[in-house]
């Protein structure tokens, strides 16, 4: 375990195991402390994650990518919205402001949709959250997978509300948007707080009957959507399953537990608990 005193088999072991996890295993030590190169590698990762928090969403580019999605659904240009958190420092310290649309954005929603808005099944809301990078990178390909599955759904002819993009938003902004769009359910695609190993993790939150004042107990979450985490097709299947159950039972949240035959995540061939097998 001492640095510089690894046996070849120990090094080889940790190399192999690192193929199965991004966790910082097998770091070695000097005394009981971290070796210098590991200490500095961590500091660099933290520096990059700090920078990611402040990286702004390129809304125009996101909208273009979304409109380029090939789908049987008609994709209008997403409506661009802002919350009451005017900038990043305010956003970080005032989650309450990130849950409410600015009055301009509210008006904009009113102007650009019929009033009262035609009832729809689902409002999809893209939100920068704490990692704009996640939404920028993963929202379009995830959306493509999701729209494909919704279109193929034999049980329901899905009516989508206009797509929206919200800057400086929290998860609950979906309640505000969903209510204004008169949607029966809302799906929020939001950048999760950046981790050291995953500055680009996308979170998906489903809420039945969106309206202001709902709590986390009213939502269902599918987390860590990115190629190195939960991949787009699997994430999309989970969401469609949750949506179907949500519509069948007219609810979401704690009472709507995830249940499917493939509930347990399947892993790449050969993944097993080697400590006991």
């Amino acid at each position, binding site marked *: 375990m001492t640095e510089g005193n690894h046996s070849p088999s120990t090094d080889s072991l940790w190399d192999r195991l690192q193929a199965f996890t991004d966790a910082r295993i097998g770091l070695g030590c000097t005394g009981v402390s971290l070796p210098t190169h590991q200490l500095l590698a961590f500091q660099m990762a933290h520096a990059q994650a700090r920078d990611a928090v402040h990286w702004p969403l390129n809304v125009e580019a996101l909208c273009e990518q979304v409109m380029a999605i090939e789908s049987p659904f008609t994709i209008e240009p997403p409506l661009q919205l802002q919350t009451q958190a005017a900038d990043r420092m305010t956003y970080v310290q005032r989650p309450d402001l990130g849950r409410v649309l600015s009055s301009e954005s509210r008006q904009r929603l009113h102007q650009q949709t019929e009033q009262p808005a035609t009832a729809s099944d689902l409002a999809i809301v893209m939100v920068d959250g704490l990692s704009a990078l996640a939404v920028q990178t993963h929202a379009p390909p995830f959306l493509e997978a999701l729209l494909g599955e919704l279109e193929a759904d034999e049980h329901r002819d899905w009516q989508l509300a206009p797509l929206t993009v919200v800057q400086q938003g929290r998860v609950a902004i979906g309640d505000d948007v969903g209510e204004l769009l008169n949607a029966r359910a809302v799906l929020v695609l939001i950048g999760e707080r950046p981790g*050291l190993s*995953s500055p680009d993790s996308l979170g998906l939150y489903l809420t039945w009957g969106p309206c202001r004042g709902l709590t986390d107990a009213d939502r269902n979450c599918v987390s860590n959507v990115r190629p190195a985490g939960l991949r787009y097709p699997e994430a999309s299947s989970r969401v469609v399953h949750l949506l179907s159950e949500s519509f069948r039972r007219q609810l979401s949240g704690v009472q709507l537990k995830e249940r499917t035959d493939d509930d347990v995540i399947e892993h790449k061939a050969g993944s097993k*608990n080697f400590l006991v097998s």
Partner: protein
Amino acid sequence: MSRTYSYTLGRKAYRFDGLAQLMAKATPGRSGDRLAGVIALTAEERVAAQMALSDVPLKTFLEDLLIPYEDDEITRMIIDGHDPEAFAPISHLTVGDFRNWLLSDQATPDVLASIRPGITPEMAAAVSKVMRNQDLIMVASKCQIQTAFRNTIGLPGHLSTRLQPNHPTDDATGIAASILDGLLYGSGDAVIGINPARDNVPQAMKLMQLMDEVIQKYQIPTQSCVLTHVTNTLEAIEQGAPVDLVFQSIGGTEAINSSFGFNLNTLAEAEDAALSLNRGTAGNNVMYFETGQGSCLSANAHHGLDQQTCEARAYAVARKFNPLLVNTVVGFIGPEYLFDGKEIIRAGLEDHFCGKLLGVPMGCDVCYTNHAEADQDDMDNLLTLLGVAGCTFIMGIPGSDDIMLNYQTTSFHDALYARRALGLRPAPEFERWLTEMGIFTDANGPHLNDLIPEQFARSLGNVPGVTSND
């Protein structure tokens, strides 16, 4: 309700509209109280509030209830469960006197244990607000809370760790790799506890099975826990899963717990169910709770209270159900509640103090997120301070990086640092196991073996792509 409190400073009179406001204004500054709009407006107002608060008799907290009895089942539990006999020795004290008494030589570990049922969380929160960090450390270090399941947690001079082998897709090999890494650094005596990537019953059962097999095969004197919703664990127990500890995130108001999807009855049912399995060998503490300042406000369930008072009330919930472990996840919630390293450190020490004073086996997830103004140096400071304060347990994770929850907590290395620098040891049963397994080469200190111990080396032929002669 709505009694007014005041303090006169020279010609200036400060008035506080109710005990909740007085408590909030007396709280050392933090972003969550600013967000809630309950923070003192000036530094002088804060100290004036602390002075007024220090004159409030402890008895007042039994009459002037911060959240009405009719509105909140936790208030009812606190008031109905208050023990007047245990309270008698301190019943004549004010908050300020109480601080003096706690620091005095009269307040020995035994005496502190005897008055616990007479202390309400509001009293604990109030006195903490007029204490400096060193006071919080000093008094906490005198509070001894011992619990047991397959080993003994909380003995003086011991620091335990939760081995937290989280993986973003719950990959079995990935989780096993982190467990092996942690065990080889002497981590995992508090619990091996996984936050599942997917929160459902079958997934939780799969992880329970995985950890149970490891614990059985290597005869590790520790316990496992999957940090899934309490109702999921109840279902898993019904389906025959090997459940050691039942987990739940808890808060200090009925409304927050309701937003988490449970109430006190649910917890009672869960404790009974876990006890019925009779899996503990050293003791019967079967619950694992997590808390953290700011959770009530984040669900708008704080009733106008400051976040630290809400947090202390969560420990009253915890102690009702005889937990093995209670963990304040202090820096996880983010900078809107605890802005920077200074606020996180203060909150960690307050939580540990209040928990210990009320009698819960308090550990701390010494942690921060990437959007907080904090870094590893702040965590080193809090870890060291908590080690001195006699903290029950901390987290252990490979290289401080939780790749599933996306935050930084203490590493396996950090725990070894604290143990070596402060002369602290793992739970005795676990320490014996570490020595027998050849993980620690010296029973008297955490000296690590340079080689993989024999029993683990035999299993490594099972690692995909590794041959046993590799």
